[in-house]
C-alpha cells in the first residue's frame, strides 16, 4: 500500500526530469514517461485493491508538512477516489499509447510532460481535502488540458482550446472566490473542518448559500451542464481524439467526484433540485441534439455530455434524494457502472474515430464489413453505450431506474425517452456502418488500446451482471442461466470453425438444453404456462435450426451464435420468475434478434430496434410502477397484492404488442420479416412473436385483474387484435414479395391470438394457445419453404416465379398443406383454432369482433391462393427448367411440419391436451369445451368431430379417384403451352403467365383501407421531430461570447431559484 503523496511526488520529479532528458533523445523520454505512468498505475491499483479486499478499512489520511488537518493540507483517499484514480490512469495510459502510435507532432517530450501533469492534476484533485489546494490542482489539470486540446495546432483544435481557456478561467475564478469566502465564513480551508462548522440551518442566513453556490457553480461549469456546455462539445469535435478520450474518459469524472464530494461536505441542501434541473435537461437535450449530427466526433460528444448529465442526476439522488436501504445501494452501483461504462466505451469510440480518421458519418459506410476486428470493437462499445443487455451500460441503467423513488416517475419516463433517442441515433450510425461494402481499410496507429479497453469492458459487464443478481437478491437460477447463454453462444462462435461445425454445435446445444429442461424439473416445476412455452420454443428452434444449414453458407460467422443466443433468451423469458428477469431476457431477445435482422436489411433492423426499444423501455417504466418490496423487484404474484394504476398494465402490454405486431405498432414487421436472413425468419415469425403472446398472458392473468377498469382495456385489445387481423390480411394481398406477404399474414394470425387472449375466458385461452402452436407449425413451414424457394430460384419477387410444381413436388405438397392450414379449411389443423376462437367469441357475445375475425379469415383466402398460384402453378419459366428440389434438411422439416398439420387436424387434442394443462395452471377449472366422445368436441354453441371430418375427406377423395378410373377415358399428358388460348399458340411462358398484381381489380374497391395511414403518420412525426431538433440545435452558435453569456445567465438563474433573499 503506497502512500498517495509519493505518487504525486514521483510524477512531478519525472515531469521535471523530462526537461533535462529531452535533449538526450525521444527514446529516453518515452522510457521515463512509461516508467512513471506504470509506477503510478501500480501504486493506485494497490490502494484500490486494498480497499476492494477490505485490507484497508477506513480511508487513508496523509498529513503534508507534518501539520494536522485544519492547519496543514492533507490528502484523503477513500474508496471511490481510489477506483476513479485507477480508471483515470488506465485511460490515460491507453490514450498515451494510442497517441504515441499515431505519432505526436514535433516537441514530443513536452507533450508527454503535459500528459503526465494532466494525470497528476486529476489524481491530486481527487485526493486533496483542502479547498484551495483543490483549486490549484484544478488549475494544473485545466492548463495541461488547454495545451493538450490545442496540440493538433489546426484551426479546429485551437478554437476549441481558446474557448476552453476563457470558460475555464471564469470557472476557476468562481472556484477561487468560493474557496476564500468559505475560509472567511468558516475559518479554515479544510473540507472536513468546514463541514464540521456548517450545519444546514446556516443556509437560511443568506451568506453561506451564495458562497456555496459560487463555489459549486465554478465546478458545475466544468461538468458540461446544458446551457453552458458549448465549449465542451467543441472540444469533443475539434480536439485530438486521444486527448478527448482522456478528458471524457477520466478527467471529467474527476471533476464529477469533486463536485459531489464538495457538495456533500458543504451539506448543500438544494443539490437534488440542481441535480434534477441540470442533469435531466443536459441528458434530454444532448440526446435529442445528437440526432441530426453529421460529424461523428460531435455525435460522440453529445452522447458523452448526455451520460454526464445522467451521472449528475444519479449523484444528486444518491447524496440528497434521501434514498435508503436497497435504493441507496442500487444508486451507488448505478453511478459506479455509469462511470466505468462511459469511460471505457467512450474512449474506445474516440480511439476508433481517430484511427478511421474521417469525420463525416456518411464516409463511415461499410466499415464493419471492411475490417472485422475494428467492426467488432466498434459494435461492442456502441452496444454497451446504448445499454444493450449483456453489457455494462444495461446493468447501470437498470440499477438507476430501480433506485429512483417512485414519486419521481416523471424522471424515469424522461430518462427512458432519452434512452430511446440515444438508441435511435447510435443505431442510425450503426446502420450506416454495417452496410455491405467491399474493400479493406487499414489505419496508421495501433488497435491495442481499444482492444484493451473492450477487453476490460467485457470483464466489467460480467462483473456487473454478477453484482446485479447478487445485490437484488434475484434467484441465482436466472443469473446462472444468463451466464450459460453468453458462454454457449461464444462457444459456438469460437469452436465453430466452419458453418457445418457451427450448425452441429448449435443443434447440439439446443438439444442439450431441451433435454436438460425436460429432465430436471428445477427450471420448470409442474407443467404450467411457462413450460408450455419452453417446449414450444425449443421444438420450434430445433426444427428451424435444422433447416438453416444449406442457407447458412452465405451468412456471416456471427449468425449461428446469435441464433443460439436468441433461442436461449426466449427460453429464459419463459422461465423467468419475476418481472425484472422477464425484462432482462426480453431485452436480450430484442437485441440479439436485432443483430440477426441486421445481417439482412439494415434500415428494417433499425426500425425494428427502435420500435422494440420503445416497447422494452415502456415495459421497464411499467415495471417501475409495480416495484414493491424491499429490493424493489416486483414478482408476478406480489404485484397483484394491491390496486395498480392502469398505466402500469398498458405500458407493460405495449412491449408485447410491439413484438406481436398489433395494428398501430406493426410498421416494423413487414420489412423486418421481409429482409431478415431467410434462415432466421421462421424463428422470428414462428417463435419470437409468441413471446409477445406469453407476455400478454402473464399481464392479463397476473396484472389486469387488479388494474382499474381492466375490462375496457381487454375489450380494446380485442378490437386491436381484430383490426390487425383484418387490415394486415388486406395489406398482404397486394404485396409482391413472398416473405412480405407471409410477414403480413403472420401478423394477422397473431391478431387472432390476441383476440383469444383478450377474451380472458378459459375457452379464449385454449383457442389462443392452440393457435399459437398451430401458427408456429404452419408459418414455420411456409417460411422454411419460402427460404428454400428463394435459395433455389435466387429471387423472392413473386411475379418472377411460377410453375415450380413441376420441379419441387414435395415443397408444393408441404406448401399446399401449409396454405390449407393457414386458411383454416377443416380436414387440417388450422380449422380447430378457428373453431375454438369463434365459439369463445360466441360465448362472450362479442358479435362485431366475431364478424371481423371471420371476415378476416375469408380475406385470408385471397393471399393464400396468390401465394400458391404465383410460386407453384402457372407457366414454368425457362431459367427454372433445371432447378432441383429444395436441399434435404429443408424438405425434411417441411414434410415433418406438413405431417404434423395433418396429424393434429385429425386428432386436435395432440395440442389441446397440453393447452388444457397450461390453462389449469392459470387457475381455470375446465378448458371451456368438453369431449362428448373420443373425437367429438362440444362447446356451449356448437360441436365438431375432427376425426370424422378427416376420415370423410380422405375417404370420399379416394372414392372419387376410384370412380374416375372407372371412366374409360385414357389420360394424355400435354405440354404446358398447349392451351386453347383464343386461337393462338403461345410461344413463350412469360407471355402467357398471369402472376403480377393478381388483385388489381380488387384494389379499386379497397383503396381506402390499404393506404399506409399508419406508416405515414410515423414518418410525419419522425420528420417533424427531426426538423425541430435541427432548428433547436442551432442553440450552439459556436460564438465564444454567447457561450460566456450563457454561463452568466445560468449563474443568475441558479441565484434566482435558490436564494430568496434579495428579490
Amino acid at each position: 500500500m503506497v502512500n498517495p503523496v509519493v505518487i504525486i511526488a514521483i510524477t512531478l520529479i519525472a515531469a521535471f526530469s523530462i526537461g533535462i532528458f529531452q535533449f538526450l533523445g525521444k527514446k529516453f523520454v518515452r522510457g521515463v514517461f512509461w516508467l512513471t505512468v506504470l509506477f503510478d498505475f501500480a501504486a493506485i491499483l494497490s490502494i484500490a485493491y486494498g480497499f476492494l479486499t477490505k485490507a484497508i478499512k477506513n480511508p487513508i489520511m496523509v498529513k503534508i508538512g507534518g501539520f494536522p488537518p485544519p492547519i496543514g493540507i492533507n490528502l484523503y483517499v477513500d474508496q471511490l477516489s481510489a477506483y476513479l484514480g485507477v480508471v483515470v490512469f488506465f485511460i490515460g495510459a491507453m490514450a498515451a499509447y494510442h497517441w504515441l502510435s499515431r505519432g505526436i507532432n514535433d516537441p514530443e517530450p513536452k507533450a508527454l510532460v503535459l500528459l503526465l501533469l494532466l494525470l497528476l492534476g486529476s489524481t491530486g484533485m481527487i485526493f486533496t481535502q483542502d479547498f484551495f489546494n483543490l483549486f490549484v490542482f484544478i488549475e494544473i489539470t485545466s492548463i495541461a488540458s488547454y495545451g493538450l486540446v490545442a496540440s493538433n495546432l489546426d484551426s479546429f483544435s485551437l478554437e476549441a482550446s481558446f474557448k476552453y481557456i476563457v470558460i475555464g478561467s471564469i470557472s476557476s475564478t468562481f472556484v477561487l472566490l468560493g474557496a476564500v469566502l468559505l475560509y472567511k465564513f468558516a475559518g479554515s480551508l479544510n473540507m472536513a473542518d468546514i463541514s464540521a462548522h456548517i450545519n444546514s440551518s446556516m443556509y437560511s442566513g443568506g451568506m453561506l448559500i451564495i458562497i456555496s453556490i459560487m463555489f459549486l457553480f465554478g465546478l458545475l461549469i466544468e461538468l458540461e451542464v446544458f446551457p453552458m456546455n458549448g465549449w465542451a462539445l467543441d472540444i469533443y469535435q475539434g480536439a485530438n481524439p486521444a486527448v478527448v478520450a482522456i478528458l471524457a474518459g477520466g478527467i471529467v469524472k474527476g471533476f464529477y467526484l469533486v463536485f459531489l464530494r464538495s457538495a456533500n461536505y458543504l451539506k448543500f441542501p438544494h443539490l437534488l433540485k440542481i441535480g434534477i434541473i441540470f442533469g435531466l435537461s443536459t441528458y434530454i437535450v444532448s440526446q435529442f441534439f445528437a440526432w441530426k449530427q453529421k460529424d461523428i466526433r460531435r455525435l460522440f460528444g453529445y452522447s458523452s455530455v448526455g451520460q454526464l448529465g445522467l451521472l449528475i442526476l444519479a449523484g444528486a439522488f444518491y447524496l440528497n434524494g434521501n434514498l435508503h436501504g436497497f435504493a441507496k445501494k442500487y444508486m451507488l452501483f448505478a453511478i459506479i457502472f455509469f462511470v466505468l461504462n462511459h469511460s471505457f466505451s467512450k474512449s474506445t469510440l474516440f480511439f476508433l474515430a481517430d484511427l478511421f480518421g474521417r469525420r463525416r458519418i456518411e464516409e463511415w459506410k461499410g466499415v464493419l464489413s471492411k475490417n472485422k476486428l475494428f467492426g467488432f470493437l466498434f459494435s461492442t462499445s456502441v452496444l454497451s453505450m446504448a445499454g444493450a443487455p449483456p453489457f455494462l451500460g444495461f446493468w447501470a441503467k437498470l440499477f438507476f431506474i430501480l433506485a429512483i423513488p417512485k414519486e419521481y416517475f416523471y424522471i424515469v419516463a424522461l430518462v427512458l425517452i432519452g434512452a430511446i433517442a440515444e438508441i435511435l441515433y447510435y443505431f442510425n450510425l450503426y446502420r450506416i456502418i454495417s452496410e455491405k461494402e467491399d474493400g479493406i481499410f487499414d489505419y496508421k496507429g495501433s488497435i491495442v488500446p481499444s482492444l484493451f479497453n473492450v477487453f476490460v469492458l467485457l470483464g466489467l459487464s460480467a462483473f456487473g451482471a454478477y453484482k446485479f443478481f447478487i445485490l437484488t437478491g434475484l434467484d441465482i437460477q436466472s443469473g446462472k442461466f444468463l451466464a450459460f447463454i453468453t458462454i454457449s453462444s461464444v462457444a459456438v462462435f469460437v469452436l465453430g470453425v466452419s458453418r457445418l461445425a457451427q450448425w452441429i454445435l448449435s443443434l447440439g446445444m439446443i438439444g442439450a438444453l431441451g433435454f436438460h429442461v425436460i429432465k430436471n424439473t428445477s427450471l420448470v416445476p409442474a407443467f404450467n404456462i411457462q413450460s408450455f412455452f419452453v417446449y414450444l420454443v425449443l421444438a420450434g428452434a430445433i426444427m428451424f435450426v435444422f433447416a438453416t444449414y444449406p442457407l447458412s453458407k452465405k451468412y456471416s460467422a456471427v449468425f449461428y451464435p446469435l441464433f443460439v443466443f436468441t433461442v436461449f433468451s426466449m427460453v429464459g423469458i419463459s422461465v423467468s420468475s419475476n418481472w425484472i428477469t422477464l425484462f432482462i431476457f426480453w431485452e436480450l431477445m430484442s437485441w440479439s434478434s436485432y443483430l440477426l435482422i441486421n445481417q439482412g436489411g439494415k434500415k428494417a433492423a433499425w426500425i425494428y430496434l427502435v420500435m422494440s426499444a420503445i416497447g422494452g423501455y415502456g415495459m421497464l417504466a411499467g415495471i417501475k410502477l409495480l416495484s414493491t418490496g424491499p429490493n424493489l423487484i416486483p414478482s408476478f404474484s406480489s404485484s397483484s397484492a394491491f390496486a395498480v394504476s392502469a398505466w402500469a398494465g398498458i405500458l407493460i402490454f405495449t412491449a408485447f404488442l410491439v413484438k406481436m405486431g398489433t395494428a398501430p405498432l406493426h410498421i416494423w414487421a413487414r420489412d423486418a420479416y421481409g429482409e431478415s436472413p431467410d434462415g432466421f425468419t421462421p424463428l422470428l415469425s414462428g417463435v419470437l412473436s409468441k413471446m409477445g403472446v406469453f407476455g400478454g398472458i402473464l399481464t392479463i392473468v397476473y396484472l389486469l385483474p387488479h388494474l382499474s377498469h381492466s375490462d375496457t382495456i381487454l375489450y380494446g385489445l380485442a378490437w386491436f387484435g381484430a383490426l390487425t387481423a383484418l387490415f394486415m390480411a388486406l395489406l398482404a394481398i397486394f404485396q409482391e414479395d413472398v416473405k412480405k406477404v407471409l410477414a403480413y399474414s403472420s401478423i394477422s394470425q397473431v391478431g387472432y391470438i390476441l383476440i383469444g387472449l383478450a377474451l380472458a375466458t378459459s375457452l379464449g385461452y385454449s383457442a389462443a394457445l392452440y393457435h399459437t402452436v398451430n401458427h408456429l407449425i404452419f408459418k414455420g413451414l411456409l417460411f422454411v419453404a419460402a427460404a428454400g424457394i428463394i435459395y433455389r430460384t435466387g429471387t423472392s419477387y413473386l411475379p418472377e416465379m411460377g410453375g415450380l410444381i413441376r420441379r419441387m413436388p414435395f415443397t408444393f405438397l408441404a406448401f399446399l398443406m401449409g396454405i390449407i392450414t393457414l386458411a383454416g379449411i377443416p380436414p387440417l389443423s388450422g380449422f380447430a383454432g378457428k373453431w375454438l376462437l369463434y365459439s369463445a367469441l360466441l360465448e362472450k357475445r362479442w358479435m362485431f369482433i366475431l364478424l371481423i375475425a371471420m371476415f378476416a379469415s375469408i380475406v385470408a383466402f385471397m393471399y393464400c391462393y396468390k401465394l400458391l398460384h404465383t410460386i407453384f402453378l402457372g407457366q414454368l419459366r425457362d431459367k427454372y427448367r433445371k432447378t432441383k428440389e429444395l436441399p434435404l434438411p429443408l424438405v425434411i422439416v417441411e414434410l415433418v411440419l406438413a405431417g404434423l398439420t395433418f396429424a393434429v387436424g385429425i386428432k386436435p387434442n395432440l395440442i389441446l391436451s397440453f393447452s388444457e394443462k397450461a390453462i389449469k395452471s392459470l387457475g381455470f377449472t375446465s378448458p371451456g369445451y368438453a369431449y362428448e366422445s373420443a373425437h367429438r368436441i362440444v362447446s356451449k354453441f356448437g360441436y365438431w368431430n375432427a376425426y370424422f371430418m378427416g376420415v370423410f375427406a380422405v375417404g370420399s377423395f379416394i372414392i372419387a379417384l376410384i370412380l374416375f378410373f372407372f371412366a374409360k377415358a385414357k389420360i394424355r399428358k400435354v405440354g404446358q403451352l398447349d392451351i386453347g388460348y383464343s386461337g393462338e399458340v403461345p410461344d413463350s411462358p412469360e407471355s402467357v403467365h398471369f402472376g403480377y398484381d393478381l388483385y388489381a381489380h380488387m384494389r379499386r374497391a379497397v383503396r381506402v383501407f390499404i393506404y399506409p395511414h399508419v406508416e405515414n403518420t410515423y414518418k410525419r412525426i419522425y420528420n417533424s421531430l427531426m426538423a425541430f431538433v435541427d432548428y433547436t440545435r442551432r442553440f450552439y452558435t459556436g460564438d465564444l461570447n454567447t457561450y460566456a453569456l450563457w454561463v452568466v445567465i445560468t449563474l443568475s438563474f441558479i441565484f434566482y431559484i435558490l436564494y430568496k433573499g434579495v428579490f
Partner: protein
Amino acid sequence: MVFFAASLLLIFIGLYAALVKRNLIKIIIGLSIMDTGVNMLIISLGFVKGRTAPIISLKELFKKGTWLVDVSKVVDPLPQALVLTAIVIGVAVTAMALSVVIRMYSVKKSIEIDDFKELKW
C-alpha cells in the same frame, strides 16, 4: 466596503469584456483584469484596520517575553499567501492563452471571434 465594491466592479468589467468584445486579445485583457480584481478582493477580505503587515521584524509584536506573536497586531496572512499563488496562476493562464492566440493568428491571420466559429451546432 469600498474595496469590496471596487474589486467586484473590476471583476465585472473584466467579465463584461469577455462577454462582449470580439477581439481575442481584448478578451484576454478582460480576463487578466478580472484576475487582478479577484486578487484585490481576497486581499481586502484579509485586511484588518489598524494592524501591520505579517512580517514580524520588531520585538514589540511579540506577547511579553514569549515567542508567541500578538494576534491583535498583525493582519490576516493566509489570504496573502493564497493571492501569491493566484497571481502566478493568473500569469500562467494568460501566457497559455496568448500562445494559443499567436498560433490562431498564424493559422487564420485574424484574431476576431467571427473567424473562429467553425465548431458549432
